[in-house]
């Protein structure tokens, strides 16, 4: 069978699936496995790995048809790291055994994944990381500390980058692993944030053992492999258009409309400025999706991330100020571990504090500006002092 190339062709395949596995009567897990087997999990993946080798754009057709038919999905928000970061990297660098072993339970959600990249001493400068992996027979023995790990407490597996050779410059001495989170050397502790919640975790690795069979890519190629992971993180934009006043602007505009007694002309003008920028950001998202659909994505995704962070911070800051006396209060400081993060959830104070993370997580706005300046505008890089020094000799 050659790969489908038109919406009509995949619609037929979806119809077949639905005919053979009526969502109304099929168990969720069974349905997802049947969908996997039919290559309708991610159509752009190869045949045999949940896909059909078809154009990525056709996935939207599948998702839409299945949603209309009331079919269960794999709860993609819950397993976002696996789908968005681990899967494309395993596909690109994994051995056949690794692909067969990991991709299916990853996609069905049977096995949740997390990411062990950032360290307390290596944030924006990820390549400076110091978690050590030493070879010991058929295993690697890993010791170090990772941070900002969401879903670590529910995850079965992790993608992990560790330093295997401290004697070479930092970009060259790292290796990429798939780490079993149930290993006794892995300890997960909640990391409380300024909101009071603990969305993330710290992960302490103490002589955690990883079989060499769970190494992804060659020894010393960790940086290259990690680039694939991070690239996929950055291109992950929603596939559906946001309606006007979707997102933070909608929440804040609602707050505004709910309190006409507090309206002032200066506050209205400030909110309108933010409304304008939010609408432009929304339009930029539509434009980016149209570019993707035409197969020519621009670099505007990074503009959108910058603008998103700035706007969510400005809007939520405006809201707290606008609420005046009500803005002086907070819902609850009790430490909880939310299942899913909702930037717009809870109260104005929460939104304000949580939004502060938007310019840090997933690449700080500062690093993003460096990337735009150098890769989009072609401006020269700064003088580098850390390119050729062995990692162990870097000042820190």
């Amino acid at each position, binding site marked *: 069978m050659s790969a489908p190339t038109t919406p009509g062709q995949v619609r037929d395949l979806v119809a077949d699936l639905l005919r053979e596995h009526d969502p109304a009567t099929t168990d969720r897990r069974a349905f997802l496995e049947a969908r996997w087997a039919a290559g309708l999990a991610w159509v752009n993946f190869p045949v045999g790995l949940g896909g059909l080798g078809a154009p990525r754009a056709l996935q939207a057709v599948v998702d839409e048809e299945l949603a209309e038919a009331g079919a269960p999905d794999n709860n993609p928000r819950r397993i976002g790291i696996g789908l968005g970061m681990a899967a494309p990297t395993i596909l690109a660098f994994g051995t056949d055994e690794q692909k067969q072993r990991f991709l299916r339970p990853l996609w069905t959600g049977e096995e949740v994944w997390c990411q062990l990249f950032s360290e307390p001493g290596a944030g924006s400068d990820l390549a400076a990381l110091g978690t050590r992996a030493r070879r010991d027979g058929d295993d690697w023995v890993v010791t170090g500390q990772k941070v900002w790990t969401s879903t670590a407490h529910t995850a079965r597996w992790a993608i992990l980058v560790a330093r295997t050779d401290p004697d070479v410059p930092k970009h060259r001495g790292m290796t990429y692993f798939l780490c079993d989170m149930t290993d006794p050397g892995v300890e997960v502790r909640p990391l409380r944030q300024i909101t009071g919640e603990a969305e993330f975790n710290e992960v302490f690795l103490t002589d955690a053992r990883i079989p060499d069979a769970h190494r992804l890519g060659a020894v010393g190629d960790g940086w290259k492999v990690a680039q694939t992971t991070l690239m996929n993180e950055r291109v992950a934009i929603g596939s559906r*258009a946001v309606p*006007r*006043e979707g997102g933070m602007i909608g929440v804040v*505009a609602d707050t*505004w*409309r709910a309190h*006409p007694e507090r*309206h002032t002309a200066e506050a*209205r*003008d400030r*909110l*309108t*400025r933010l*409304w*304008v*920028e939010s*609408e*432009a*950001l929304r*339009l*930029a998202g*539509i*434009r980016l999706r*149209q*570019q993707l659909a*035409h197969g020519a994505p621009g670099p*505007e995704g*990074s*503009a*959108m991330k*910058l*603008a998103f962070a700035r706007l969510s911070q400005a809007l939520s800051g405006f809201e707290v100020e606008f609420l005046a006396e009500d803005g002086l209060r907070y819902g609850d400081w009790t430490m909880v571990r939310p299942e899913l993060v909702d930037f717009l959830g809870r109260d104005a104070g929460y939104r304000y504090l949580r939004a502060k993370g938007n310019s840090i997580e997933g690449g700080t706005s*500062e690093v*993003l*500006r*460096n990337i*735009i*300046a*150098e890769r*989009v*505008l*072609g*401006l*020269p*890089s*700064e*003088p580098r002092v850390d390119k050729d020094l062995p990692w162990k000799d870097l000042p820190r």
Partner: protein
Amino acid sequence: MSDPDLLYSDVEVDLRASVRALLADRADPAAVLARVVGERPLDLDLWRTLAVDVGAASLPVPEDVGGQGAGFREVAVVAEELGRAVAPVPFLGSAVLATAALLHLRDQQDDPRTAALLTRLAEGATAALVVPLSAFHDGPLPAVAADGDALTGSVRSVADAGAAEVLLVPAGDALYAVEASDAVVRPVVPLDLTRPLSDVELSAAPGVRLAGSGAAATRAALLAGAGILASEQVGVAEWCLDTTVAYLKERYQFGRPLGSFQALKHRLADLWQEIALARAAARAAADALATGAEDLEVLVLTAQALCAGVAVHAAEEAVQLHGGIGMTWEHPVHLFLKRAKADEIALGAPGAHRTRLAALVGLAG
């Protein structure tokens, strides 16, 4: 409300290439600077080539009256390129404002005189809508009095009137066509050297009253103009960013290219980000004008409220990051600063746009 088409079509890409090539040939910044301080700031030869040979004047004019029957999306692409070159041609006054007013009248009511004027414009004649360049579609219009068909009044700071054969004069609820020779058109000294302004004086000037509501047509033209101006502003901003990036790459200080200094890099990255959003907003306004979208006014106001400031910001950053050279008359960046600043006021200032927008989207009252 379906999503607007925010990409450039193949036709638009080709049109852009023609206009850009023409302007590179005939309106490089040094030539523009030399011209605009001379006796005849408008380049009417260039305008004729652009209007007739490239067809920029007839784009939105329907085919049955001699135009191309294209739409405001294409007009916006031309505006972008003209902004990138601050080319001194009467495109905004004639091919946008005057043409849009006539198109609106014609949509209201068939009038052979309106059709004839559109044909004349499509063939390369130049007209001007006699309102101050600062007029806002939701604000007051100038008060010209009509006594029968004799028009009396004066209107300040009219864009592109100096080159117009025909003046379109709003008076009361009507729009009148006045031959330029029947009016006194006095050039004034503009802040933006590349868009000449005139005061227009009418003393019982004979006008031809065109059928339909001239006030509605004038307001529609101002709204269309504001929408197209957003694309011009994107072009201005883009030239400023590109030119500054190029300058900072080649200019060395402290033994390094200036463009390697992180503080400057971050400012340029922010500017690029602003322009990316501005472009999306400007494209949405142009598409809405082309399709007559239900939320046209919201999209035009959004684009103007955003793009006006982005162009000014880009031009101000360009002057600052060029250092001393950017303060000299010889370097063209000041032409863009002046254009950006005048454009900010043109067709309503951002404050006015925001105020109206707030009312439209339910943030007022």
